[in-house]
């Protein structure tokens, strides 16, 4: 087992090392190496999964201790893995979707001369993400956490020759850093509180800890989750992150990495369960983000940015569910998995469209594509139906459960959260229908690209369509499969715990309400974009639309509040730094340099003077020894 888990993480890590260090020799086979190792990892994941299924429910958690990194007193930085149902779910999602996206990238990146490097980064991401979900302690989780951050940075900025990509990468990195600081402080607090980093001792001791501490830890963990999962207020990087190649958007910024925050909250469930304040904060963040993302999604003309808004919004759902405690953990993860399928599928579809349209991303320049790329159209359509929660498809099973659970929170809070979730479902239907209509229906609004090439939309190669088809299967059936006999619930319950909520509305009432909202949303979209021709240039729109186009002014907000404020703070600090700190540091440095330059003169190259210093040294040595004895 140890070795299998090690190999699971090791295979993509090896791939990353080989591809990044191998040099140009590997250019011709690099993508195959990367894909193969991702597939190996997936195969190992499946094997472990089969092994786990063969065991009793209560004995499925497997922990292994690899080694301890420099123990000091009670400080033990262990490197060890924990494989339970929760991490197993993530392993399958990460390696499965990851492998598909590797295959897709073979075709998508075929003409990029740095393809080998791209696959190296993808493998690096897989390894880091697997480390994140398999770690048995917070410190190792942090290593994986930073690893995925690094991979994400490298991949967003992969086309670094574009200034926009370089800026976006930097932005993602910096915003994530804010969250990372939260995580690192949370880990420090964890250690001072529980004297351990490992999950099981920490969770076992939660009841002994003071409430204030737990709330602080919970809020800091939430801050970390906000950074990685693009939740309000740290959401601003995700839209820009779409500058990366589309497979990256699909894999990292839709299916896997951005869900790491949800994983963190779910994994730390014991801590959140003990602090109602922290839980409520999670719920609020989730609810706000789900509306926020949905509104942004409605206004974007860039197909990938619209999908990015949608990602934010869907993760908001997961956060909301995770904030509900044991009632919601299972559904958060369930929605996370199905979302992984359909959102990855949608992104790949978007990539396929761009591939056929000279890399155009503006939906206003699409239209009527359904006949030209039928496979893309069908798979994208299925993903669309899944995400809006069309009855019977994946999204229906998972999103309805979340809405139901939100109502079940009870009291005023429950109603507010439930209604917000319900409205979110309607808005989702609106913007997704909009995307669908603008891209595949209506008249052709194609325009030549900057070089004057008229687009010739065509279906993408097999290596791109096959992953899309597989993901479409997942989008259609996964939710139903999971809900059959509540199988997913039983699977995950031993880890996350589950308690039946008491919803003021029955399950079918929620379903009907959701469906109604959905139809209304979709209908509005059809009214707007189906019946009327879509203008090739975006109309000015209302204040809200304009604000939404600018990501609801989040960047402006950040600029005014954080950047300006920060600048003032920095200027003061810089002043202090120059006058006080620099003075001290430079003084020291100059002092050291001066001493160094003077001492250096002793090294004059003359053997005899060296011999003098040796003789002197020997004399001092002897004299000092004698003095010690007082002779």
């Amino acid at each position, binding site marked *: 087992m140890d070795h299998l888990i090690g190999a699971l993480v090791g295979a993509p890590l090896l791939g990353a090392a080989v591809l990044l260090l191998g040099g140009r020799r590997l250019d011709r086979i690099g993508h195959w190496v990367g894909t193969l190792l991702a597939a190996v990892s997936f195969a190992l994941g499946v094997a472990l999964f089969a092994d786990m299924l063969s065991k009793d429910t209560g004995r499925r958690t497997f922990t292994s201790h690899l080694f301890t990194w420099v123990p000091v007193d009670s400080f033990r930085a262990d490197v060890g893995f924990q494989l339970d149902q929760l991490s197993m779910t993530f392993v399958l999602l990460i390696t499965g979707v990851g492998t598909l996206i590797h295959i897709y990238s073979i075709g998508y990146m075929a003409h990029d001369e740095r393809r080998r490097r791209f696959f190296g980064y993808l493998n690096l991401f897989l390894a880091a993400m697997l480390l994140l979900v398999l770690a048995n302690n917070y410190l190792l989780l942090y290593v994986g956490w930073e690893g995925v951050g690094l991979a994400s940075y490298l991949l967003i900025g992969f086309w670094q020759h574009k200034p926009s990509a370089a800026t976006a990468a930097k932005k993602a990195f910096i915003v994530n850093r804010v969250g990372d600081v939260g995580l690192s402080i949370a880990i420090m607090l964890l250690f001072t509180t529980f004297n351990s980093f490992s999950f099981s001792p920490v969770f076992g001791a939660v009841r002994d800890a003071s409430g204030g501490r737990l709330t602080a830890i919970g809020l800091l963990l939430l801050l970390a989750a906000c950074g990685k999962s693009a939740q309000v207020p740290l959401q601003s990087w995700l839209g820009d992150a779409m500058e990366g190649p589309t497979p990256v958007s699909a894999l990292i910024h839709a299916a896997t990495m951005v869900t790491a925050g949800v994983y963190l909250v779910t994994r730390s469930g014991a801590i959140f369960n003990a602090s109602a304040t922290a839980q409520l904060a999670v719920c609020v963040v989730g609810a706000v983000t789900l509306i926020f993302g949905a509104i942004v999604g409605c206004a974007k003309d860039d197909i990938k940015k619209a999908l990015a808004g949608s990602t934010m919004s869907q993760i908001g759902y997961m956060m909301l569910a995770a904030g509900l405690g044991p009632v919601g953990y299972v559904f958060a993860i369930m929605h996370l998995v199905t979302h992984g399928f359909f959102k990855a599928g949608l992104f790949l579809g978007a990539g396929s469209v761009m591939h056929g349209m000279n890399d155009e991303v503006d939906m206003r320049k699409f239209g009527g594509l359904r006949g030209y790329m039928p496979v893309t159209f069908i798979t994208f359509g299925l993903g669309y139906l899944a995400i809006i929660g069309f009855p019977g498809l994946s999204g229906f099973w998972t999103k309805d459960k979340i809405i139901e659970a939100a109502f079940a929170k009870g009291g005023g809070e429950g109603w507010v959260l439930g209604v917000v979730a319900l409205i979110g479902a309607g808005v989702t239907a609106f913007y997704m229908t909009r995307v669908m209509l603008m891209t595949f229906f209506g008249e052709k609004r194609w325009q030549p690209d900057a070089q004057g090439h008229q687009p010739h939309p065509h279906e993408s190669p097999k290596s791109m369509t096959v992953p899309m088809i597989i993901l479409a299967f997942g989008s259609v059936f996964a939710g139903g499969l999971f809900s059959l006999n509540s199988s997913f619930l039983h699977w995950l319950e031993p880890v996350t715990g589950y308690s039946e909520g008491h919803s003021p509305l029955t399950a079918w009432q929620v379903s009907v309400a959701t469906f109604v909202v959905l139809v209304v949303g979709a209908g509005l979209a059809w009214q707007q974009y189906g019946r009327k021709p879509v203008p090739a240039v975006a109309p000015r729109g209302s204040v809200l639309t304009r604000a939404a186009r600018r990501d609801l002014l989040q960047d402006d907000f950040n600029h005014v509040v954080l950047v300006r404020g920060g600048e003032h703070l920095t200027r003061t600090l810089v002043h202090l730094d120059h006058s006080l700190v620099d003075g001290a540091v430079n003084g020291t440095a100059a002092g050291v340099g001066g001493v160094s330059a003077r001492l250096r003169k002793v*090294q004059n190259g003359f053997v005899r003077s060296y011999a003098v210093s040796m003789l002197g040294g020997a004399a001092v040595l002897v004299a000092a020894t004698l003095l010690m004895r007082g002779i």
Partner: protein
Amino acid sequence: MSATAVVHSLLTSAAATPAADRIPTPHIEYAQLSPVLIVLGTATVGVLAEAFLPRRSRYWAQLGITVVGLAAAFAAIIALAADGYATTRAHIAAMGAVAVDGPALFLQGTIVLIALVAAFTFAERRLDPVAHGNRVDSFAAQGSAVPGSPQEMKAVRAGFTTTEVFPLLLFAVGGMMIFPAANDLLTLFVSLEVFSLPLYLLCALARRRRLMSQEAAVKYFLLGAFSSAFLLFGIALLYGYAGTVAYTGTATAPGIAQVIDGSANLTPALANSTGNDALLLIGGAMVIMGLLFKVGAVPFHQWTPDVYQGAPTPVTGFMAAATKVAAFGALLRLLYVVLPGMRWDWRPVMWGVAIVTMVIGAIVAVTQTDVKRLLAYSSIAHAGFLLAGVIAVSPSGVSSVLFYLVAYSFVTLGGFAVVTLVRDAGGEATHLSKWAGLGRRSPLVAAVFAVFLLSFAGIPLTAGFAGKFAVFQAAAQAGAVPLVVIGVIASAIAAFFYIRVIVMMFFSEPQPDGPTVAIPSPLTSSAIAIGVVVTLVLGVAPQYFLDLAGKAGVFVR
């Protein structure tokens, strides 16, 4: 005493020797000494190969002989350790001359591995441009030819190379293996010379910049001989004090340790001399000085930068790594086995030495402009950090020093191997200004060098961090907190100049006439790769190796 019988029989040679006067046959445990014997035997075979093989087949033959010999020696060490000679069966072999115990086997294993990696860099023949159709290594075509003379031209044109470097390397390795295992002062002195003499010669054999190389050899030789004279005089005084040169013994046949702690039965003459502590103190100080010279501690360090700079870079790497391992091994044994009884005398002195070594090594490095000199000063600073661990006088002190030595030596080998790659028309481009912008031109080489520098600086997740941490922890536990504080400050100063090199490589513009990075053969590549792997493995998972060093860290007495 049987030796008296020898002289007696010499004087009365006319008389028939009675059978009872037979000198008992000394008991030599050949199997337990096999690692050293294999290496020295291989060296002898190398000399024969040098004598009888035709010139063109010597290179491959020597390389093969060296690698096979070192591998066999390593196998022998592993076999001995597996047989328990490192722990339960540790004892003193060869009539009290050589210890076979954990530290000895651990250090011998380390030295053999270092030598194996160094042999690869010695054999590298792809870096120098092909001259007259012959691939050449870093060593002089003909050591005896005057630089620039027609004789040298002829040798170069004929494609001569000094393949004697391999047997010389092996002889040095043999001496270094005995050095930390030596259990009497005579063996200590002889093994010191056995490994020093080949090193003096190796230093003089650079292919490029031969004047500097010869100058390095002269300096190293004169100062080395000077220091070994001190060492020998110290041995004489200790012998005068204790009447023996054995480290340990029994009450009836005492070693120096027994005489010092007073558990020996004293003869009248001995009782007279042991009354005179001056002999012990002066002698001990002079022996320690001889060892401190070899480890490059201040104020006996001044040969280091000059010799490191002038010697052929593969030799520098070998010397920096292996000499330090051997000399620290000998120093540990001397201080822990022989002189623990007078720890209150030498500890304060060693405190002082450790402090000035760390501080001066770090400070003077700041203004260096040559990569090899920079690494030399860095090695001085590292000697200071190691001394901090030595001073602990505790089991964790031993294990931390053993661990540090492994971590330091492979990083050093790798670092100097990288230095051989960066070249311009005059050979290696060692001036730091030439390294500016290397990260743009050869990102991989620069990145690897950066890894080594970070390890030297002791950045977490590198071997250097784990080693420094272990050493300082041991020192702090032994109550040497001020020493640790100074050590950390010195590390900070040292980190400054390591990072400066990294900044220079990655964040400054490359010079238009900058050096090129030669593509090495698998030999040097593997040396560098081993360095990187050791750096990262020891940095990420040091505990296993710390445990190993802890298990091996018990001296036999």
